[in-house]
């Protein structure tokens, strides 16, 4: 496991190398936030497109935070296993809304 970047055996000097990565992610996050807000001021015709763009950007940002700040990029297998399981059930929960209305037919008034 010694090859992982965050192994405990790293000396302080070696560790310093990572700092640049953190700053870079910080800048990226701020820029992406700016882009999201900027796009929203465009008042896109298609709301679907606006939602898609915003959510994609948010996912990229979340990915950066998780991968770098939470150093998921090189994590141990157990944690991946737990997260994969969680992701699976998370998708299931995200499916609930469509199940709630799915096939309830034209009679469903949704309000």
């Amino acid at each position, binding site marked *: 496991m010694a090859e992982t970047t965050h192994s405990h055996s790293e000396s302080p000097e070696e560790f310093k190398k990572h700092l640049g990565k953190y700053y870079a992610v910080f800048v990226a996050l701020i820029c992406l936030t700016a882009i999201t807000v900027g796009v929203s001021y465009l008042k896109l015709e298609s709301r679907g497109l606006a939602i898609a763009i915003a959510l994609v950007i948010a996912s990229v940002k979340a990915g950066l935070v998780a991968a770098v700040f939470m150093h998921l990029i090189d994590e141990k297998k157990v944690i991946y296993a737990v997260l994969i399981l969680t992701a699976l059930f998370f998708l299931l929960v995200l499916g*609930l809304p469509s*199940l*709630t209305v799915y*096939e309830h037919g034209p009679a469903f008034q*949704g309000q």
Partner: protein
Amino acid sequence: MSETTTHNGHDHAHAGHHELPFWRKYIFSVDHKVIGIQYAVTALFFLLFGFTLMMIMRWQLAYPGQPLPVIGKILGETAMPGGVMAPEFYNQLGAMHGTIMVFLGVVPLAVGGFGNFVVPLQIGAPDMAFPRLNMASYWVFLPGCVLMISSFFFPGGAAQSGWTSYPPLSDIASVGQTVWCFSMVLIITSSLLGSINFIVTIVQLRAKGLSYWRLPFFVHAQLVTAFLLLLAFPPLEAATVMQIMDRVAGTSFFLPSGLVVSGEQLKVAGGGSPLLWQHLFWFLAHPEVYVLILPAMGIVAEVIANNTRKPLWGYRLLVYSVVFLGFMSFVVWAHHMFMTGMGTTMSTFFQTTTMIISIPSVIILTCFIMSLYGGNIRFTTPMLFATAFLPMFAIGGLTGLPLGLTASDIYLHDTFYVIGHFHYVVAPGTLFALFAGVYYWFPKATGKQMNATLGKIHFWTSFVCINFVFMPMFFQGMAGLSRRLYDPTVYAHGRGVQALNVVISLGAWGLGLSQIPFIVNFFMSLKRGARVAENPWNATTLEWAAPSPPGHGNFLTEPVVYREPYEYSVPGHANDYSPQFVEGS
């Protein structure tokens, strides 16, 4: 008899460490054993309490509209005007019975009690991974329980919308429902803390040599249970938060537009969905029913292996089944909602998954029965309860099939057939397994053995009575009798099966009386039970390597595991058991 006059070599575990003050040792203890016992005793108390609620309720069902002698007076005029139960009080008793039995009784006993006490011992750990978190979990749980019980004293009484708390009914119910929500938030939080602790403990703290395939089945069951709690509970917590918002802040997450309650239009924004609650609730509550059964199966496995004096049949198959069961339990929840008007694709999907999930249960049961084959079966008290578990769970499980198939569920949904189904799995099923666990691990926890004669009386009377309680419910359900009915005689088909209600109630009160030998035995054995050494059952798993009761840090020497968990009757051995922790064989 004084506790110091023992000659068993293990007692030095008590001595030799500096004494913590009483409140640190027994109240705010961080020791998993003390916390386990706290959980267990609290849970036993609530089981009795929940049962008492039901015994009162059974009066109304057997003799609708007749005043309940003595107790009717005590309960006061709002609950029991003139000694006759008010319908709203009936509904409170029902909702609280369900909630208390599930969330304050069985889960805390099975997971909080047995899980906490036994798991670290069985894996050879000195304690849980996070002792203080463990303490916090109990001390979040207890206020939750107290709050739940206190709701009876709020204006309008306790929650009365069923343990399922379906909105809009629960949204417009009296303030007791808000209290229910808040205490559920506490109880859920406690469970989450506990489940994190279990997973970390089992993954990280296993003794040397204790690979996953050497874990006792009970530990596997607890591990799967912990994952169910961890991932299924948060959606209910979210739903409960939204229900609190609906009730306190006037939002309408679960309230559609245009509701007219008692002739008045409800003044809310509307636009919510009552089915959303049901999905979130059952997303938890189906896994939850496996939370009730898996630890019970774990206990049964331990007791059966120990008392048949042979290895469990199909140990690996059992483990695969339990993992599969845990996984599948997340994708069957909507079988509780077949009658909410879902379409054919969705219902076909969910009835298929429901049938699939019954297969691992069949396998588990088969493994248990096959474990009896070729054994040398000792009918100790724990074994009696564990043996009874098998056919009782079989009845409960088999009657799940007609409910899981959409076409038959049209007729059976929300009838007493459902009540019969799940009580067979939770009462003579889980509850009996828990009794088995109490009798089995009591010597480990206290160093005293429970009285076998009282135990046998407890078993046989309970076994007979409980079948009189739940078997007739299938016939009532078949006759079409709805559940949660304050007065079943309102309906002609209800009058047809009213005689059975009398039988059931007599059975329930008989079952209540049958618990007296247990309660007596429990307290008497604490004081006067026969002293036992480390391993009174000649068992093989690690908890029997520790002194009885185990001292701080559990083991005198760090345990090392040399073999599979259930090496009983190994050929060529003088003893009929070869413990995991003894070297050489």
